[in-house]
């Protein structure tokens, strides 16, 4: 979130966001601040805090392009890039109106089946940039994400990967057999910056939880353009350390 607030302050424009597989507060802030041209995602919501108000309004008014996905299609498209193949098949989805919205999907006959067996092919997706927050980075440039392996999939598929982390650790985490399965190796990591409590108001497992009260406050404020601008003034335009709970 620290990086998202910085993008807004830098007046980023014409971003295309890819949700893996969904988007939330980051996307709603970027959309409301005018940074986004297109959203590609299975959903955009604030989870238990409800609808993402800036996304909903921008989509309803046609101010942003929206390409709707279904979760496993996003994973499949990134996994194709991980493997260096042009597409991968995915079961289900046939008969959904999602298919018509995708020039990058095709329905084909399973070439290994004697009988009729239509199946969806999903083209590989290679994002320009992967951007996320993680718990640790080490001296060797590795990043530890624990069980959040979808972050590894994004990093593997993206051309560049930038990560903010809670803490730097000495040494090489790959030397620790218990940490190794949760690591994205330095091979995939373009740049790392330390940002303590950098996920706030979202959480980092075992370090701090989601700030539910803040999310509920945002969901209410952002229902109106004025309320959203007020939120930006308070929490984004001037990033005040004091606004972050200790």
């Amino acid at each position, binding site marked *: 979130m620290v990086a998202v607030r910085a993008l807004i302050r830098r007046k980023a424009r014409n971003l295309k966001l890819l949700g*893996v*597989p*969904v988007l939330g507060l980051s996307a709603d802030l970027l959309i409301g601040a005018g940074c986004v041209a297109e959203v590609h*995602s*299975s*959903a*955009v*919501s604030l*989870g*238990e805090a409800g*609808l*993402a108000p800036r*996304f*909903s309004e921008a*989509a*309803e008014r046609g101010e942003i392009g*929206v390409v*709707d*996905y*279904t*979760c*496993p*299609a996003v*994973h499949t498209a990134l*996994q194709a890039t991980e493997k260096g193949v042009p597409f991968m098949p*995915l*079961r*289900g*989805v*046939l*008969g*959904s*109106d*999602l298919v018509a919205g995708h020039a990058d999907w095709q329905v084909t006959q399973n070439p290994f089946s004697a*009988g*009729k*067996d*239509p*199946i969806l092919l999903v083209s590989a997706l290679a994002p320009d940039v992967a951007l996320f927050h993680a718990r640790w980075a080490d001296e060797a440039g590795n990043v530890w994400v624990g*069980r*959040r*392996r*979808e*972050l*590894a*999939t994004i990093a593997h598929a993206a051309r560049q990967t930038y990560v903010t982390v809670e803490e730097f650790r000495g040494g090489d985490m790959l030397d620790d057999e218990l940490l190794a*399965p949760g690591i994205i190796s330095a091979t995939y990591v373009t740049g790392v910056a330390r940002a303590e409590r950098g996920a706030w108001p979202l959480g980092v*497992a075992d370090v701090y939880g989601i700030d539910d009260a803040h999310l509920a406050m945002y969901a209410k404020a952002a229902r109106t353009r004025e309320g959203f601008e007020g939120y930006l003034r308070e929490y984004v335009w001037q990033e005040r350390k004091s606004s972050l709970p200790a």
Partner: protein
Amino acid sequence: MARAEELLASLIARLIADARHVAVGAASPIAATACELLRALGKPLRVTRLHKRKGNPFTEGSRELFDLAGQGRIDYFFLGGAQIDGEANINLVHAEGRRFPGSFGSAFMYFTCRTVLFRDEHSRRVLVPRVEFISAPGWSPPEVLRRGGPVALVTGKALFRWQPEKRRFRLESVHPGHTASAVREATGFDYDVGDVQETAAPSAAELDLLRGPVAAHIAADYPDFAKRVWS
């Protein structure tokens, strides 16, 4: 006297009584309550909680849920919709000019798991003749490989059974305080009517479990819901 949420949970528990593995998401406290009720009744049910680290067994990232479902390792799933139509198509994208969050995993999960459609609001706004956008289709032509699909539609007023051969719902029961004619009035799609019963209330033993161990369990994962229903 059972509360509405308790009635719905016991109804859903009966619908999925043969389940061995159910996945439940953040927006489904009633479905989660149904699963905990089955466990409290002694069923060896595995419940995967998608939005909690505790109870979420996935170590390969969020794709693992879909890989697991794609192999047939999840028996039941729950879906809702901004709109649901008489062919059991669901729409999670846009309706009447309003944008909703999106289709999530529905276009895959509906094909892989037996699915209970659940939407508390029972109105012509939600239960429409034809959805404006098909996030996930209620049925597929025979050449499309499909293991899962709708088994029932549960609303705040009634239970409809899905009839796969007729591709239509059949009204099976109406909840206490509602009538079949009022349900017809509030439903935008056509459906068959069988021998309509009143939805069975939870037994005294079930209510004891719901208000005891089940409530305690649910309060940990869905605190707002538990507070509203049981305090």
